[in-house]
């Protein structure tokens, strides 16, 4: 920080200014805005398929609000696209743990998504404690934890404790899984 010009504390407060971060076309920004606009189109088209009960001509039917939402999405997304074309790029969020100079690390994000997706299979197949072990251990490893086996052990501990507290004590029906199913304290 020494001797630097005071950086704006909250970049968003400076009004989404023109940030010539890179000369490349911001494909991601266009894509996201385009998807939002497409969702708006879907809302409008979908609204047309909602049946309007007969005899409610003067009263607001079930279509009007969806039409409004669709139009809002389409118009707002198009304005964002126009702004991006003109050079008004979005200002990424800031936070204590966010390195403002780091490029987006898509590999880590992909790993995290993969580990999160493993829940879809693991929770019901192997039980909650195992699923959490995999999610916690995998996520910590993806984020750069120094020793992967420590991460796995913490994950297992977390899985067992949450199973005990939420499944056993608070009575949520979390599946303990085939490995632990015979232990009575893991059930509510």
């Amino acid at each position, binding site marked *: *920080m*020494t001797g630097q010009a*005071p950086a*704006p*504390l*909250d970049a*968003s*407060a*400076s*009004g989404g200014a023109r940030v010539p971060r890179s000369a490349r076309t911001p494909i*991601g*920004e266009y894509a996201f805005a385009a998807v*939002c606009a497409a*969702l708006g189109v879907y*809302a409008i088209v*979908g609204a047309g398929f*909602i*049946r*309007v*009960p007969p005899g409610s001509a003067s009263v*607001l039917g*079930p279509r009007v*609000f*969806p039409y409004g*939402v669709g139009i*809002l*999405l389409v*118009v*707002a*997304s198009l304005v964002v696209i126009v*702004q991006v074309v003109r050079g*008004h790029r*979005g*200002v*990424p*969020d800031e*936070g*204590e*743990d*966010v*390195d403002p100079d780091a490029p987006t*690390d898509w590999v*880590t*994000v992909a790993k*995290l998504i993969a580990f*999160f997706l493993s829940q*879809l299979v693991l929770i019901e197949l192997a039980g*909650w404690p195992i*699923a*959490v072990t995999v*999610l*916690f251990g995998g*996520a910590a490893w993806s*984020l*750069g*934890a120094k020793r992967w086996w420590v991460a796995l052990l913490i*994950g297992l501990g977390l*899985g067992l404790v949450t199973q005990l507290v939420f499944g056993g004590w608070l009575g*949520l029906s*979390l599946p303990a899984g085939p490995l632990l199913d015979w232990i009575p304290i893991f059930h509510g």
Partner: protein
Amino acid sequence: MDSLNALLEGFATALQPQYLLYALFGVFIGTAVGVLPGIGPAMTVALLLPLTYTLDPTGALIVFAGIYYGGMYGGSTTSILLNTPGESSSIATALEGNRMAKAGRGAAALATAALGSFVAGTIATVALTFLAPGIARLAVQLGPADYFALIVVAFLTVGALLGSSVPRGLVSLGLGLMLGLVGTEVLSGQQRYTLGIPTLSDGIDVVLIAVGLFALGEALYVASRLRHGAVAVIPVTRGRHNRMSRRDWARSWRPWLRGTAIGFPIGTIPAGGADVATFLSYATERKLAKGGAKAEFGRGAIEGVAGPEAANNAAAAGVLVPLLTLGLPTTATAAIILSAFQTYGIRPGPQLFETQAGLVWALIASLYIGNVMLLVLNLPLVGMWVKVLRIPRPYLYAGILSFAALGAYALHFNVFDTLILLVIGLIGFLMRRYGYPVAPMVVGGILGPMAEEQLRKSMAISQGDLLYLVHSPFAIVAYATLALIIGLGVWLKRRKARLESTPTLVPTGAITAVDEREPEKS
């Protein structure tokens, strides 16, 4: 005196051992996660929503109130001791508090922040106690058109129009409204936007929206640009001379009171919550400072910590006024607390003080109790929180992901919810990545269905006459206020931008020099 009696009854409930424990649990967790960087109160309440599946309503709401207040206290510790700005409402504190800590006066900064939060929290809770029942009595007379007006005000002010980019805020709002549309339409009973998936016919649970956007989305975003290496925490030197001196007290108490006076009213109106309040308080203190204190601004002025911290907590209490009396959340956190009410089938609003009087007053009483607990947790035990700050980030974010997964699965014990959570989390990640605010989306998702209901009710009453929406004086006042708030917001934004460009941040080396000169002056 009615509300005094009711409050005493509330205390009788809240002081029962089990509720005291819930309150302690809430403020403890709240402070812990408030201290943890990257986790704000919104995310915490979202992550702990699963508690509502098992606790009774009073217990759960006492826990959430504790988390809500605790998160506000904890945030200041982070911003004072970490080198990077934290949640938006405590950035003003970060400026001065961080500089005080660097100059070796961290303990005094932490103390004035905790005491200021306590003073402001208590005064603001007293104001809430006496104001809320009156407002609720007035609000009973509001019709659907008035509610629609209030919701529109909330939509447009919570982020959408007060954020940095208006179209991005509106896209975010639209996405939230879109999520709210999914499910069975109330009046005609048909399904909308469910893609033929039976699970979606119940709609997308607000828990998934809140946890997905705040917990999962935030964790993915931080993961994508994680600051690697050791966590830089400024050490707090213990000792007699580091505590708040008599002079610090003399310089703090007026900013505390001024901060409260600024924060509470701003919290009660839908004007962007604590964020605006802290900046106004900071600007006020800077303007009012005289002599040596004025020169200290930008180098670690204690007034610049005391005022904004008080304003922050007072605003947090103020936010509860519209939430409890009108059912109107004015911040993302309040929107999530509202969804916790909804889980129990309780609808905050004017009737709440009559139908659920016991619950509301126990909740308000627990706010007083929580404030006292927080003072104890934050003054003598601050060393413990400093340790929490050092949790290695990989484990922290892995833990957040695990609790997010728990919250989604425990909702209906169906992994389909886990999938929806992941999709919403990805949207949240991309929104942060491309500079869209997430708060409007949460508010849109929670208030959207209510907005449609009130709009259609008004249209049914008026037989389709749109003018009915502005027929009552209340609605006219609401829309006029909206225009005023937008104008004020633009003005505040300019002011904030100016404020950020002016403070002369002296090199860190010079801070000690300034501080050494100080004893001669006093």
